[in-house]
C-alpha cells in the first residue's frame, strides 16, 4: 500500500481523535449559545464582519501581534510556533502537490513526505521547508529558555501547569527536534535534503548508521505527534482551535451573558494560559496572592474545580483584561461565575425600602448621588456643595439622608437579583423627582447607573464631567497653581467607563499633572475595590502602599483621584495628601 507504514498509525489515530473531539466540543458549545446569540451569528455570517475576522485570525492566532506589544521576544516565540507550524503544513501540502501532481494525497503523505519520497533535494521546496523548520525550532529553543529564565522574555512569573498541560507541553517540545532528526537521518542516508536537514544528515552520517536510526526516529516523531494530539483538547493547547471561532463570534456581536453558557465555554477554552495576566495583577506583585489570577480562575472554571475562594478573590480592576492577548472578557466571566455561585431569589429582601421616605424635591433638574463612599468623605461633599452653589443649578441631593446603595457592590458579589431591588428603588426615585441630569462623585455608582439603570431622559455624569462643563461655561474659574499632582485613574472610571481625559483636564486647570509609568488603561488599583471580598486589610494596604509609591515616584506633591474609595484606600497609605478632584477645584 502506497503511503503506508506501521509508524504512521499513531499519527493517524491522533489526528482522527483530535478532530473528532474538537468538532464534538465546538458543536456542543455552539448549541449552548442562547437563541439571541445564534441569531447574531446568522445575521453576521455573510457580512464584512466575517472578512474582518479572517484578518484578525491571521494577526492574532498566527502572528500574535498583541503579544509582540507586551514583549517582542515573547511575541516572536509564540508567532514562530503558530505561524511557523501553520506555514510548514501549508508548504508541506504544496510540496507534495507539486512533486506528486495530485491534491488528494492522504495526510500522512504530507507529514512524512521525506520518509516516503526521500530522493528530492535542492530547489525551492526543500529550502523553504528547512527554513520554516528552523523558524519553528528557534521558537522551541526560546520556549526551553523561557522555562529556565522567564524574565528574559518579559514574564516575571510564569504560569503553573496542570499535569495535562505538561504532557502536551513536553510532546510539543519534542515534535520539532524529532522531526529535524528524522528528516536529517533520512537525508543523510540518501545524500539529499535542504540546507538544514541535508547538512545535518551528512554530518550525522559521518559517525552514525543513519540508515538504521532513521526508521525509529520516524516512529518517535509519529508517537509524540499522537501524544500531542491526544492531550491537546484537554490541555491549554485547545486554545489553538478555539480562538478561531471565538474571534468570529465576537465580531458577529456575541457578548458574555448570564444566559448563554456557550460563549463562555469558547472563551474558557480559548485561554492559552500564556500567563500574561499574572504580571499586571497587583494582588500578586504587591500582596503575594498568587493562585487566583485570571489564568488560574479560567482553568478552574474550565475543569469544574472553581471555588468561591478563587472567584471572589479578585479586585476586578481590569488590568489583566487590557493585557489579555486573546481579548477575553475576564471581568465579565468572573462576574458570571460569581452570579452562578451566589445569586438567589431576593423578593423577600429589602421590604423596608417600601417605607423608605424618598427625599423628593421636585423642581430640581440636577440630581446629585454622592454614593455611600462619598458620604464617608465629608471633604468631597463639602467641595461639591460649594461647586453646586457656584454652578447656579438647583441641585437635589438624592442620598443625603437615608440614601440607598446603588446596587453595584451586590452585583459585583454575584447577588444580581438583590442588586436589582436596589436599582429599581433608586431608579424610581430619580424618575419621580423629574431630574434630567444625575451627577455622582463615585465611579462605582456611575458604572451601575450607566450599565444597569436604563435611565432614559437622564444624563448621567461623573462629577469630573460636570465640573469640567462648569469650567468651560466659566461658571467655575479655578486658580491655576504650580502644584504637581499625580492623577490616579479609578478602575471603574478609567478602564470601567473609559473616562480618562476629562478628570485630567479638571486637575490641569488647577495644577500641573505629573508623568506616570502605569497610566490610563494600565493604571493601578488602589487596593480597596468593593469587588473583592477576600483580601485582608493588611493585603489591601500592601497594594495601596505600592500604588502610592508608583504614583509619587516622579515627585508629585499630592495624589488626585476621582473616586472616594480610592481616596480612602490610597490616603491611609500615603505620605502625600490624597485629594478628590472636587477638592482641587474648591478646597
Amino acid at each position: 500500500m502506497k503511503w503506508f507504514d506501521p509508524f504512521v498509525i499513531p499519527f493517524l489515530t491522533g489526528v482522527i481523535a483530535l478532530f473528532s473531539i474538537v468538532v464534538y466540543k465546538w458543536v456542543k458549545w455552539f448549541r449552548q449559545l442562547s437563541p439571541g446569540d445564534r441569531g447574531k451569528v446568522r445575521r453576521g455570517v455573510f457580512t464584512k464582519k466575517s472578512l474582518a475576522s479572517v484578518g484578525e485570525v491571521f494577526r492574532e492566532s498566527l502572528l500574535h501581534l498583541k503579544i509582540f506589544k507586551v514583549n517582542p521576544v515573547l511575541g516572536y516565540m509564540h508567532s514562530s510556533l503558530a505561524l511557523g507550524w501553520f506555514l510548514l503544513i501549508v508548504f508541506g501540502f504544496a510540496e507534495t502537490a507539486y512533486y506528486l501532481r495530485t491534491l488528494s494525497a492522504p495526510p500522512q503523505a504530507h507529514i512524512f513526505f521525506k520518509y516516503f519520497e526521500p530522493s528530492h533535494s535542492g530547489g525551492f521546496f526543500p529550502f523553504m521547508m528547512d527554513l520554516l523548520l528552523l523558524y519553528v525550532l528557534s521558537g522551541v529553543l526560546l520556549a526551553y529558555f523561557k522555562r529556565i529564565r522567564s524574565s528574559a522574555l518579559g514574564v516575571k512569573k510564569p504560569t503553573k501547569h496542570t499535569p495535562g498541560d505538561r504532557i502536551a507541553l513536553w510532546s510539543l517540545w519534542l515534535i520539532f527536534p524529532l522531526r529535524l532528526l528524522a528528516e536529517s537521518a533520512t537525508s543523510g542516508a540518501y545524500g539529499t535534503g535542504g540546507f538544514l536537514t541535508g547538512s545535518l544528515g551528512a554530518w550525522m552520517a559521518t559517525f552514525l548508521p543513519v540508515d538504521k536510526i532513521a526508521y525509529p526516529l520516524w516512529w518517535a516523531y509519529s508517537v509524540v505527534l499522537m501524544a500531542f494530539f491526544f492531550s491537546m483538547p484537554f490541555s491549554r493547547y485547545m486554545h489553538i482551535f478555539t480562538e478561531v471561532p471565538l474571534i468570529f463570534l465576537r465580531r458577529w456581536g456575541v457578548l458574555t451573558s448570564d444566559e448563554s453558557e456557550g460563549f463562555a465555554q469558547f472563551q474558557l477554552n480559548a485561554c492559552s494560559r500564556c500567563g500574561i495576566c499574572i504580571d499586571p495583577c497587583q494582588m500578586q506583585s504587591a500582596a503575594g496572592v498568587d493562585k487566583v489570577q485570571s489564568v488560574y480562575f479560567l482553568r478552574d472554571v474550565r475543569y469544574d474545580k472553581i471555588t468561591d475562594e478563587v472567584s471572589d478573590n479578585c479586585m476586578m480592576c481590569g488590568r489583566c483584561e487590557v493585557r489579555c492577548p486573546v481579548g477575553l472578557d475576564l471581568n465579565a466571566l468572573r462576574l458570571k461565575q460569581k452570579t452562578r455561585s451566589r445569586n438567589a431569589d431576593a423578593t423577600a429582601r429589602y421590604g423596608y425600602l417600601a417605607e423608605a421616605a424618598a427625599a423628593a424635591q421636585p423642581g430640581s433638574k440636577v440630581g446629585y448621588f454622592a454614593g455611600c463612599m462619598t458620604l464617608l468623605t465629608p471633604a468631597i461633599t463639602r467641595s461639591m456643595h460649594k461647586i453646586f452653589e457656584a454652578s447656579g443649578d438647583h441641585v437635589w441631593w438624592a442620598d443625603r439622608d437615608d440614601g440607598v446603595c446603588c446596587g453595584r457592590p451586590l452585583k459585583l458579589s454575584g447577588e444580581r437579583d438583590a442588586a436589582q431591588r436596589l436599582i429599581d428603588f433608586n431608579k424610581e426615585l430619580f424618575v419621580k423627582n423629574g431630574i434630567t441630569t444625575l451627577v455622582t462623585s463615585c465611579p462605582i455608582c456611575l458604572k451601575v447607573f450607566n450599565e444597569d439603570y436604563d435611565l432614559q431622559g437622564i444624563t448621567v455624569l461623573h462629577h469630573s464631567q460636570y465640573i469640567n462643563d462648569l469650567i468651560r461655561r466659566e461658571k467655575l474659574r479655578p486658580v491655576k497653581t504650580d502644584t504637581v499632582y499625580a492623577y490616579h485613574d479609578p478602575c471603574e472610571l478609567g478602564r470601567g467607563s473609559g473616562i480618562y481625559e476629562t478628570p485630567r483636564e479638571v486637575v490641569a486647570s488647577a495644577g500641573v499633572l505629573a508623568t506616570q509609568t502605569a497610566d490610563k488603561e494600565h493604571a493601578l488599583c488602589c487596593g480597596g475595590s468593593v469587588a473583592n471580598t477576600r483580601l485582608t486589610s493588611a493585603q489591601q494596604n500592601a497594594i495601596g502602599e505600592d500604588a502610592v509609591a508608583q504614583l509619587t515616584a516622579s515627585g508629585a506633591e499630592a495624589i488626585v483621584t476621582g473616586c472616594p474609595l480610592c481616596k480612602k484606600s490610597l490616603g491611609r497609605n500615603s505620605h502625600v495628601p490624597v485629594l478628590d478632584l472636587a477638592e482641587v477645584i474648591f478646597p
Partner: protein
Amino acid sequence: MTMNFGYSVNQPRAINLDRNDLSPAAALVALEASVRTCIECGSCTATCTAGALTDFNFHKLHHLLLKGEYDHVREQTGKCMLCGKCRLVCPRGINTRNLILAIKKVLP
C-alpha cells in the same frame, strides 16, 4: 380593648448557651478570622446604610452570631446592601462583607 399603662413588657432576652449549637458560629469565625479582633466600638452600625433605614445592626448581628442566636442572624443578614461602609470605618480592619457573604452560605 388594650389598656395603655404607659409602659410595656419586654420579651425575655436571656440567651441559653447550653441549648445553642455554637459550631456554625465557630465555622464562620474560622472562615473570617478577623472578626475575632472586634472591639465592639459600633462604628459599623453608626455608618450603616441599611441601618439608617431599618433596625439592621451589624454589631448586634455579630454579637448574637457568636452566641448561637442564628434566627436573628438569618433574618437580619438579608437587609445588608453590601455597600462596604462598615469595612471602611472599622478600626480593626475587619472584613465585614466577607462575614455577611459567609453567613449566607453557612446558615441557609
